[in-house]
Structure formats: C-alpha cells, structure tokens
C-alpha cells in the first residue's frame, strides 16, 4: 500500500455508504484486507505505510500499540458490519498485509480473524492469507496460525543473495525463506507464496537466476516477482540521488522479467497476472484477483483502501489518528471517491489487461478496439485470443502493459 493518499471527498463519520454501492452486491465476492502498520526496521526501498515504533498516540491521547492493535482492528470490523448493514455475504478472502503482520502474536491475528468470522461469517472455502517475514516466524507460530484458520502464507524472500538483501535492508539470512516454506507445509498450509524483487542495484543476471532457482526449489505453489521501484521519499531514492547507488536501467528490468518468466515456466508455474505466477489455477491468490476484477473489499487499518460497488475510500494514515477515530466511534476514513461508469470501465481495462485471462474486447470503445487490433498485429496482444474476442497480453506485451492500456482506454 503506497504511503501517499489520493484526494477525495470526506467519508461520513459513521462510514455509511451511498445506497447504490450495495446494489447487486450479492453477485460480487467480499473480501477483507487487514493492514498491520508495524515493522521492526524500515527497509530502504519501502514506501508503505508502516512504522518502527511499537507505540504511537492519536491527538486525543488514544494509544495505538502493537499490543492493542488487534482490538483496534476489531473496532473497524464492527464499524464495517454496521456500514454494510444487512449485506448477507460471507467473506470469501482475508489478507493480512503490512508492515510486518507477524510482529503481532499469532493469537492476535487469529483473534481478528475470529471477529470477521463472528460479524460476517467466512465462506467454507475462504482463502485466509497473511504476509510473513521469514525472521519473525517459527514452526510453532505457523502451526498456531494454521490452527486459527489461516490457510495461505506469503513470505517476503526478495532475493537469495546476501549482497542484494543488504541493499534492500532485509535482515533475514539467505536460506531462511526456503526453510519457511517447508515449515509452512509442515504446519499444514496448502498455499505458500514467495515474494521476489528483481533489478535491485548490484544484482546481476546470475544473482537473479539464483534467487529464482532457490525460490522454486523450495516448492511454493505461488511466486510473485516485482521490479524494484525506487519510490520518491525513500532512503533508497536518496541514496540513488546522491550517486551512492546506481539506478537500474529499464532494459535490465525487462531482461530480468524474461528470466523470471523462463525459470518459472520451466518449473511449472504459469503467469496469471503480470507479476504473479502459480502452479495451478487453484493456487492463484483469490484475494488479489478480487482487486483485479473490481469485486468488493473492506480494507481495515491505517491507510488501507476499500472498495464497495464503485465507492472507493481510504483510511487516515497515522496509526494514532486511526485508533483515535475508532475510539470516538468515528470512521477512520480520510477520503473517498465515487467512481463514474467511465472510471470503472477504465479501471477494468487497466486491471484486467494485466491478467492472463485478459479482458473482453467489447469493453473497448471504437478507438480502443482499433488500438487493440494494432496491438495484436504488433505482437503486443495474442492474435488468437484477439480473434476470439479477448485482449490478452503476449510476453512482450506484458512488459509494455501500461503503454497498451493507454492505447486501449481511448
């Protein structure tokens, strides 16, 4: 979750949604995102909304700490229950992200999940994921999570190479993430993801190959690989600006992406979103798919974004201000936007085009449709899929997805 919030209109104190937001909700899955804004240390590349202090206070003196954070989240889940009224949908997916969710006790995480279960109910096959830092979990912790209802875990591996991890300020020892996969499997997790980062300054093609090999060797059913983005305002951006670290060329990113595609495909992983590969359709992250398909989700926690039926809102960023609002029974929402039909169409184009399923051509207006035909002729869209009425990116198209989107939304 990026740390900069958009501009928008105010959110009502009770967090109530406009009536139309819930129209047709029965046909859409509902998910929960829970943000944990705490980290032991801040990584130089990270621009997420996260804090290394374990205790933060709101302006009214309300304490937001790691220790009471589960209760604070529970307050927002109860507020969500009120705002969604008699919406009968059970929750299909829960995703705990951060920050470092595993800085909280496993009992805290399962307690929050319990609140969701109590207020909304969980679908029988619900996907319940938490992100985990390899250094903060052990077999016992994982077993507790599994027992508490979590069934998917996502580890931040980033790289197998110590010098790359050092540039990223990651503290875990190489080999630990792979061990985590085994521990998670042993604890009964069916779905395990490893997150990788490529294009870190100082990383060579060989380093990247080694990271990919190590990741697939550990046997997760899902791998995410992200190009390192040097975000403004981060320590890494300052170091690049000062010339201490060379910036990574886009061509290098392209080469690394192709290496990832090659290694992952060879190991039996198939891409289903630009940066995500899974061993089978069932191994895909259903929670993320919910974002990509315009479904409904409630994001709880400081700075978390939500979307319900064309209403998108986001919470105040600071954990203290967040806790303060909830303590006063106010919505922690900082702003919201009501999406127009055209906004939603544009979002569908930009999100669905990133998926291996692509998007239906009938979503495009005539100029966009013409652009799609050109893109198919230029090798950016798959010609067979295009002939069958869908826009699906080719491998080269995946690397130029944003450019294709710009043409297709016309």
């Amino acid at each position, binding site marked *: 979750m990026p740390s900069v919030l958009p501009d928008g209109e105010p959110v009502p104190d009770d967090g109530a949604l406009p009536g139309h937001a819930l129209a047709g909700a029965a046909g859409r899955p509902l998910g929960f995102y829970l943000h944990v804004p705490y980290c032991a240390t801040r990584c130089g590349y990270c621009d997420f909304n996260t804090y290394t202090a374990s205790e933060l206070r709101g302006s009214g003196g309300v304490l937001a700490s790691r220790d009471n954070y589960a209760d604070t989240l529970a307050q927002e889940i109860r507020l969500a229950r009120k705002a969604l009224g008699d919406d009968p949908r059970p929750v299909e997916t829960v995703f705990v992200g951060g920050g470092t969710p595993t800085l909280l006790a496993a009992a805290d995480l399962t307690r929050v999940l319990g609140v969701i279960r109590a207020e909304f109910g969980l679908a029988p096959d619900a996907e319940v994921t938490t992100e985990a830092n390899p250094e903060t979990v052990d077999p016992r912790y994982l077993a507790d999570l599994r027992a508490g209802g979590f069934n998917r875990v996502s580890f931040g591996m980033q790289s197998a190479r110590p010098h790359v991890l050092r540039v990223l300020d990651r503290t875990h020892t190489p080999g630990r993430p792979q061990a985590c996969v085994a521990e998670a499997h042993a604890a009964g997790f069916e779905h395990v993801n490893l997150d990788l980062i490529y294009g870190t300054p100082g990383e060579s093609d060989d380093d990247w190959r080694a990271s990919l090999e190590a990741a697939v060797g550990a046997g997760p059913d899902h791998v995410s690989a992200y190009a390192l983005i040097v975000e403004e305002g981060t320590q890494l951006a300052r170091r690049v600006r000062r010339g201490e670290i060379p910036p990574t060329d886009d061509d290098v990113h392209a080469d690394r992406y192709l290496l990832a595609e090659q290694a992952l495909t060879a190991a039996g992983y198939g891409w289903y979103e630009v940066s995500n590969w899974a061993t089978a359709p069932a191994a895909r992250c259903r929670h993320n798919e919910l974002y990509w398909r315009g479904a409904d989700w409630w994001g709880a926690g400081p700075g978390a974004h939500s979307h319900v039926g064309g209403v998108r809102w986001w919470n105040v960023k600071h954990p203290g201000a967040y806790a303060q609002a909830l303590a006063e029974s106010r919505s922690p929402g900082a702003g919201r936007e009501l999406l127009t039909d055209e906004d939603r169409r544009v979002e569908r184009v930009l999100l669905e085009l990133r998926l291996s399923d692509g998007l239906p051509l009938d979503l495009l207006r005539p100029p966009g449709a013409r652009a799609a035909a050109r893109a198919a002729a230029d090798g950016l869209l798959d010609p067979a899929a295009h002939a069958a009425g869908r826009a699906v990116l080719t491998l080269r198209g995946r690397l*130029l997805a*944003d*450019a294709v989107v710009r043409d297709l*939304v016309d």
Partner: protein
Amino acid sequence: MPATPSHVPQPSRTDPALIRNFCIIAHIDHGKSTLADRMLQLTGVVDQRQMRAQYLDRMDIERERGITIKSQAVRLPWAPTDGDGPGTTHVLNMIDTPGHVDFTYEVSRSLAACEGTVLLVDAAQGIEAQTLANLYLALENDLTIIPVLNKIDLPAAQPEKYAAELAHIIGCDASDVLKVSAKTGVGVPELLNEVVRQVPPPVGDADAPARAMIFDSVYDSYRGVVTYVKVVDGHLSKRERIQMMSTGAAHELLEIGVSSPEMTVSDGLGVGEVGYLITGVKDVRQSKVGDTVTRLHKGATDPLSGYKEPLPMVFSGLYPLDGSDYPELREALDKLQLNDAALVYEPETSAALGFGFRVGFLGLLHLDVVRERLEREFGLDLIATAPNVVYRVIMEDGSEHVVTNPSEFPTGKISEVYEPMVRSTVLAPSEFVGAIMELCQNRRGTLLGMDYLSEDRVELRYTLPLAEIVFDFFDQLKSKTRGYASLDYEPTGEQTSELVKVDILLHGDKVDAFSAILHKDKAYAYGVRMAGKLRELIPRQQFEVPIQAAIGSRVIARETVRAIRKDVLAKCYGGDISRKRKLLEKQKEGKKRMKMVGNVEVPQEAFIAALSTDDSDAKAKK
C-alpha cells in the same frame, strides 16, 4: 525654475525661422527618456506634479510596449537663456526615434524629419554600436550633431575620456561636447540653448503644394491610426482631403494638431512644423512611414524622396502549442499588424507542428518583440521554428524560387543560391578583438575595416551572411565579450553561396520544422548536433527510431532511439488502483500534447528544446 516663455508661437502660424526640429540618438539605458522628461519640465509643458503623476506613467507603458507606443514628437516652447535678457521664444520639436537595430529605415525617416540631433552618450559607458550606426545615418541626412555626455553625476563617469572619443568620431573638438545630468537637470538648459543656436531652422516653400513626410504611424484603439508628419512644403489644414502619394489613396483629415505632449488640435500645420493627422484609417499600412502626404486637390506631383516598402528579412514559423489556439493566433497577428506595417504572415501547415503561420520580420529583434507581445499581451504559448532568411534559388533550367521556408527549398538541379548579406558593425573593448574576429570568421564574415575609437575601444566592420547573424550570433558575441560588445547591421544585398538543405528524418519521415539551409561546410555539424539532441529528447517508443540528418538522399549523420522494452508498473493492488487510474489520466493528457511524426510520438517539449539554440545557459544569464 525657468520662466514659461510668453508669446508662444501658435501651430499653423509659426515662422519656420523659429522652429528647431531635432531628435535624440542614444543607446538604450543611456538616459534618453530621463533627458526628454527634463526637457518637458524645463519648457513648462508638463509641470512638476504632472511629471510624476502622468508622464512617467506613460513612459512605463512605453517601456512595457517596447517599440510601438512612443512619444513621437513633442512641441516644446523655449526662449534661450544665454543671451542678454529673455530671448525670442522658439518652437522645439523633439522627435522620437525607434532605438532598435531592425528599424533602420524607420530611424532614417525620423532623422529625415529633423535638421539636428542630440547625440546622447552615457559618460560611464561610451558610445555603442547601434548609436554609432544611427549617428552615421544622421550624418548621411546632413543633420547637425550636438554631442552630449549624460550621467556626469555618476562616480564611474569618465567625461574627459568619452568626450575625446566622441570628438574623434564626429570630428569636433572635445570641448564642444556638452556635459549634462538628465537626472539632476545639470546642463539641460544649456543644451536647449545649443539646440536653438546650432540646429538650422527647417527650409521649405510655403507657397508650393503641400508635402508632408510621414515619420511615424501608430494605431490607437480609440482613434484609429495617428500619423505623425513633418510638413516640408505648403500647408495642411483641418477638414481638407489629403492623399497618400505612394498609393494614391484619399482620406478626410478628421483632425490635425500637435503634441505638447497631449494631443492638441490646431487649424493646420505650416512649413517646418511637426504634428499629427487623424484620418480614420484603421491600419498603419494605409499610412506608411516614409510616404508623402499631399492635398487631394492641386496636390504635389513629386513625392519626397526616400520612401521604401518595408521588406521582411527574417522568417520564422509560429505555431500555437495548443492547436486549438490557432484562431487566437491569427486574430493576434491581425491586431499587431494594425500597428506594424513591416509584419507579414501567411498560414502554413507543418506536419510536425500543425497549423501556424510563416511570419516575416525586419530582423531578429523585431521577431523577438512580436513573439513576446503575442505571448504576453495575447496569452499565447508558441513554438517558433529557427529563424531563417530569404534565399533566391536559380535552377539549371533558369527558373527561380524564392525560399522563405527551408522545407520548401527546391529539389532537383540547382545552379545557384543567393543569400542576403549584411554590413555589420561591432563596437567592443579592444581586448576582445581576437574573440570577435574568430567569431565573425567562423560565421563566414569578411573584414571590411577596423578603427580604434579611443585607446581601448574598437570598431570592427564585417560583411556577414544574414543567416549567420540570425542564428544566435548576438548571444555568442555577448558571451565572448562578457556583454561589452554591441552590434548593428544593415542589409547590403545578396551573394551566391554554397548552400545546402539539411533534412532531419525520424523513422524515415522528414520533420519539416527541423529542415535548415546551411553552408555546405556546416551541414555536417548541424546534422550531428540535431541528431544527437533529438536522441536525448525523443522518448523511447515501442520500436527503434532511427534519427537521420540528410542532404537530399545522402545521410550525413545517424542516431538511434532504442525501443522501449519495459513500460509496466510491477505492482497493482487494492491501494494502487486510484493512483494508477489518475496516473493514466495524466499520461493521456500528456499523450494529447504529443505530436505525431509518422508513427513517432514526439513531445512538444522536444520540439521546443530542439529548436532552441545550444547556448541556453548563456541566454539564461542575460
């Protein structure tokens, strides 16, 4: 406080023997406006209080508007104070001259309306090239020159040194050079006395058919065109019908009068008098500088000599940044033309820049002034192509093409190409002679002569192709001489040169805006420079874009913009969607501002940057 003269001669009935028509030749910042203000005060036409409240305000607008709103001609009564007792009240007409290098012709007409000139030079700076050029014009017009050093109150003033320099230039005695401070008023009454004593009265035939020379013509949105004239022969009276001798067009004289300095209606104007006419015409091209005004009935048969049609020397394509501003640009040019007889333009279409105009100017300064006015007064954002001169191309089959736009340079067998030449004068401290010579040599100049104006100041005279001057010559000159050099030039015909057209191709498509006509020895350097510059400026596309510079079909330089391989944000999750959509909207706005050259998207900024001269740093420092 001087006494306001009594028995002031009235317009239309003034004895020519009491008239003194003079102008002030000065470099910008040498104090002409301040001196003029002081004269207005001393002669009592503007009192102390009004001076601040009104006149200076008006001067501010003048400064703002640059070349167009001028004080034109002010009628000042002055009784010399140097004789025994009060002298006879004379009429001094102070005629303004445009101070710009491009307006030599208009300056020459202003000078032709005078019998004398005050050569005003900053006592801390010495004479500048443009002043010198105007001085030569004044000498050609047989004007009496009154040399004056201004700003003698400044600590840095060196009146003795610059008096010697002026004496050397005009061939007078250093003791003849008056020393004044326009700021404090010291020496100004003496100067007015000298104007009366030295400047000869105008001579004309009062009984001949009326002939008046137009020395300025200004459009006023309330009154239409105000025409400033000096009556040479005969008499012009109110409400009579007049005729412009160059065109034969007849007009009703709606109003006639003098400026003192407000417009004051009179019965008419007699021999030697200077004043204004209003005929109701709406466009200065119907009342052209240099033309002769006569009566419609029993008018003169021979016009006064010296009239010339203004001829544009420098052309540039002006395009609105936002294509939808094209109608506004046309309207703005139409308006400017009302007040600028030398401005010519016609619509032009560029594949790269869209719809615009090819605009002809008297020179670079004229171009700058017009462009700045379009941007400031009319709020237009413009792209201007590199200025070019007019070429005459003779083909082997004998046919002739006049080329005002490089992209229209003919293909096929060319026999000869003629380019306009100028005679330029550079004044600078002698330590810079080497640098100036190197620059002029490098710009295909031929040295005509060199003179020391004083021990440490040199005048260099060169013949140069105008094309070399229009391309950042002045900036280069300034930077090579730390700002000390001044430049003036005047056209001296044309010469054949070995010129070629260099085209710039993007992905095989010619970019008309970047075509240039150059001496063959410079074509390669231009090609390499432009290709290199564009490689930096053109964003990577989804395909490789070759950039070529070519003469005809021969490629002389080549660069490549590599294809972009990655244009995708790695992460797009719940919290990224709004940001991503907004970014997309912004990118689409940016895409709208892209110009398509064939299949290549070129941002407008790239055109602007590529068309700007290399030495942008030097420019920023000015």
